């Protein structure tokens, strides 16, 4: 019996058991892969630290304009983060109400056939590359804006915000649908059996239960919105002024990085400043995602225990 097993081809490979080898190789792959995360985080922070010899943190974030060619260079990202907040704010203002109602439609009202068509459609919408969205906005929204608002160029914070809204909406819909689907069926049935309307059941019973999941989706959508690059770069207008109105031009953090990185030499203060801008973006996104993940895991642990 044992000789039979020992001679099994999978058991022995040239006198070597395959299992420890597979164990070692797969562990190596995992450690190498996951360590790229730490490599990126540490490297970006390390490069970013160089800027704080030239400016202080508050100057960098709040007071200095972005004039890297001045002597000495003036490095501030106020205009960039204000633009980012504007663009993402507009995007969420549009995408959140629409996305939640759409999720309610998918989860509570739509017949299964409609749901089965709608969900793949939204999946495709989520997959359209950022640069294609930027191009689409450029040939539709921007042109309309020039007509409607009589602008010389239609590129603006508003155009970027609306396109980013379309980009983050599928994400809000899918997370909200997931949260709504997780509410037990019996809640709906009990509610409906009391003779109240479906809207009442949704508003007073289902939405409160699904709210944490929906809120998490919105926060994650914010993190995605601020990381959006190409569409914001092509539509926001690449202006170094701090935007004040919706139709002003601006430059998001991602746009600033994408525009200037190619012209910055390693080791210069401008290069470090771009890394500091990246670090701000990265820390914000990781804080949001990490926080949500930790809360979710804790909730799961509670649910199991």
């Amino acid at each position, binding site marked *: 019996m044992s000789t039979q097993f020992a001679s099994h081809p999978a058991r022995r490979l040239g006198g070597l058991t395959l299992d420890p080898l597979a164990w070692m190789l797969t562990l190596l792959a995992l450690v190498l892969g996951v360590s790229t995360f730490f490599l990126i985080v540490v*490297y970006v922070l390390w490069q970013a630290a160089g800027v704080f010899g030239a400016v202080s943190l508050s100057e960098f974030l709040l007071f200095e304009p972005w004039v890297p060619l001045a002597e000495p260079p003036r490095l501030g990202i106020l205009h960039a983060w204000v633009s980012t907040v504007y663009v993402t704010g507009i995007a969420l203002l549009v995408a959140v109400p629409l996305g939640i109602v759409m999720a309610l439609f998918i989860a509570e009202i739509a017949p299964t056939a409609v749901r089965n*068509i709608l969900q793949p459609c939204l999946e495709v919408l989520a997959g359209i*590359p950022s640069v294609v969205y930027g*191009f689409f906005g450029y040939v539709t929204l921007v042109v309309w804006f020039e007509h409607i608002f009589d602008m010389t160029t239609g590129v603006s914070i508003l155009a970027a915000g609306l396109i980013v809204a379309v980009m983050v909406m599928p994400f809000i819909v899918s997370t909200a649908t997931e949260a709504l689907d997780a509410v037990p069926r019996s809640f709906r049935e009990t509610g409906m059996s009391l003779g109240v309307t479906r809207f009442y059941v949704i508003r007073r019973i289902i939405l409160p239960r699904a709210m944490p999941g929906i809120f998490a989706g919105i926060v994650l959508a914010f993190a995605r919105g601020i990381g959006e690059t190409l569409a914001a770069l092509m539509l926001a207008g690449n202006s170094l002024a701090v935007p004040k109105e919706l139709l002003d031009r601006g430059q998001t953090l991602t746009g600033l990085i994408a525009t200037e990185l190619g012209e910055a030499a390693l080791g210069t203060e401008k*290069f470090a400043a771009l890394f500091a801008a990246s670090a701000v*973006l990265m820390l914000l*996104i990781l804080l949001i995602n990490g926080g949500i993940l930790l809360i979710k895991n804790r909730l799961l642990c509670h649910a199991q225990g």
Partner: protein
Amino acid sequence: MAAFFSSKTGYYVMHKAEQLLLNNRRAVVNDRVFWLLAWTAGAIGLLLPLSIIGYLLFHGFQVLSWSFISEVPRGYPLGVSGGILPAIQGSLAVTGLGLAVAFPAALASAIYLSEYARSQRFVAVMRFFTECLAAIPAILFGVFGYAFLVVQFGFGISVLSGGLTLAMLMYPVILIGSYSAFNAVERPLKESALSLGVSRAYVIRRTLLPKALPGIIAATVLAAGHAVGSAAPVLFTASVVQTRSSPSLDSPVMTLPTHLYNLVSEAVSFEHAYGTAFVLIACLLFANSCAMILRHRLRK
């Protein structure tokens, strides 16, 4: 009876009944309004993707011809006429290299997490960091790839730098997809296979992999489709406006998304931009339908 309705109690009952009826009517109206709003939102959710995709495909199709995808860009400024062959080749080269690095690494990592890892805590921690890696926006991979690979490692703006950058982008996505594909394999199947006394490696190769393969391929195809369209990571690591030679590991290339970006931002040719967007959308639709078919097979 009449005495009851004219009494104080009777009046109260009537008043309450009337209020209830009014409330009920308001609730019904609210319900109707909500129903209408929900169907409107559903219609928007259907029309928005269809109109965006339709608009781009319609305009792109008019530009598309065999010469558009088989010729090099010509004219001045470059891209006004000719085709986009080098961009297609470049995108394939960069994404192919990225997949060649990311796929084995991600698959092996998923196997370790779902089959070999003993401690649940270790799995949870690793999943946490993987999901954090997946949350990092594409532009940051580009920034890191540029500074670390292009400049510090001296790989230059090349297929190698771009491919490795895209590999970092794809790795967490493929890992998470494969991990859930492995986890979806029924426990009894795994246990009965193990109970036969063969090694874990054998069970993985002969039982789990075939079962999980559709899910793994679906995740990989989606990740690759995403990477092909992603301009931010290759903008500074692999792409240039123009190349003459066919792609090699240490030379820069043109890629589809950055070519589209150049055509639009320099206002070179909107016609060719439509054509390039068509090719990108076609890649996306191909990847999504592949994934959908595979997932459908998996569910059976």
